[in-house]
């Protein structure tokens, strides 16, 4: 798989907009339509929120060309106390509703990574 971009966000605070903008750029590069691009940004945001609530400080985000766009988000940073919120369930369901091949990676029962993919033609 060809790698489009890899970003390491040391913190989630104040950088969400930058990450969303970068995601938009990669989506365009990958040939995703406007709607799929927006959906991808929502998925990235939800994934980061889930990892943040799982107690991580930051994340490494990689975008790959696999015929469509494959996104892998891996938690980084000190793992603090998990602070799940009821909306996490909605975040997970939203990911499933918008993206394809959604995978939640866990370590010792705790979420530590999320991956998903989008087709170039917007179908998932």
């Amino acid at each position, binding site marked *: 798989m060809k790698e489009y971009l890899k970003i390491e966000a040391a913190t989630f605070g104040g950088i969400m907009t930058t990450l969303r903008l970068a995601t938009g750029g990669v989506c365009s590069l990958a040939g995703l339509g406007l*709607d799929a691009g*927006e959906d991808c940004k*929502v998925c990235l945001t*939800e994934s980061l929120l889930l990892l943040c609530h799982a107690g991580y400080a930051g994340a490494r985000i990689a975008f790959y060309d696999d015929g469509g766009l494959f996104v892998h988000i891996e938690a980084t940073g000190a793992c603090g106390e998990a602070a799940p919120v*009821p909306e996490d369930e*909605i975040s997970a*369901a939203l990911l499933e*509703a*918008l993206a394809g091949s959604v995978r939640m990676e866990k370590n010792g029962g705790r979420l530590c990574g999320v991956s998903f993919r989008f087709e170039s033609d917007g179908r998932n």
Partner: protein
Amino acid sequence: MEETELFQTYRETGDLAVRNAIVEKYLYVASVLAKKFVGRGVEYDDLYQVAVLALMKGIDRFDERKGVRFSTFITPTITGEIKNYFRDRSRLVHLPRKVAELRGRVKRESDRIVAETGKAPAPRELAALFGVTEEEIVHCMEAGSVVSLDRPIDGEEGATFYDLIAAGGSDPIESLETRDAVKTALKELSPRERELLGYRFGEELSQTATAKRMNVSQMYVSRLERKVLAKLKESLKGGMA
């Protein structure tokens, strides 16, 4: 009451008070999801309304015996409805892809030429550059001013462009008044302007074909058409107020 108990009671009794209690309990899901889709050209209030309607439909379809939590079940349902709403709406206001693409290319090239020469390129030059007709160039530039039917009309409190569209099977008296207003407005046009309207909207000729008939350039037709339509609009606004 717990989630399962609420749904079980509603399924067994069909009691609307129970359904309302469920709606209230899960309104936050509609709100959370509507917020996720803000920033795509649709107001939050509209998205929230779509989400709440989907929530209400979903309550009737949910079966608590299947062991899935309601928020997990309803999220894709609401998301699907919101996405359908975007799709339907965008069909109304989006430019055809070909026009939108050409418009983007024309805009970029025009900007480049202006930066290089200090002079805006003529449609003829752009047409030659992109291998399309002058009319296509003009059409794609004008297409950028497409507006949503939901957009409010300046100075007309509460009115939208949608209100300007005549309804099918309208009142015959109103039709007569409209016809009268149009007749009066047409009288205010010059013979040349009326001739143009006849070709463009009577015979439905293209701007290029109209230009040939009138023995003028297509650009002249385009400019005159804009002027005439603006004149008519003003006149009709005054006449039908």
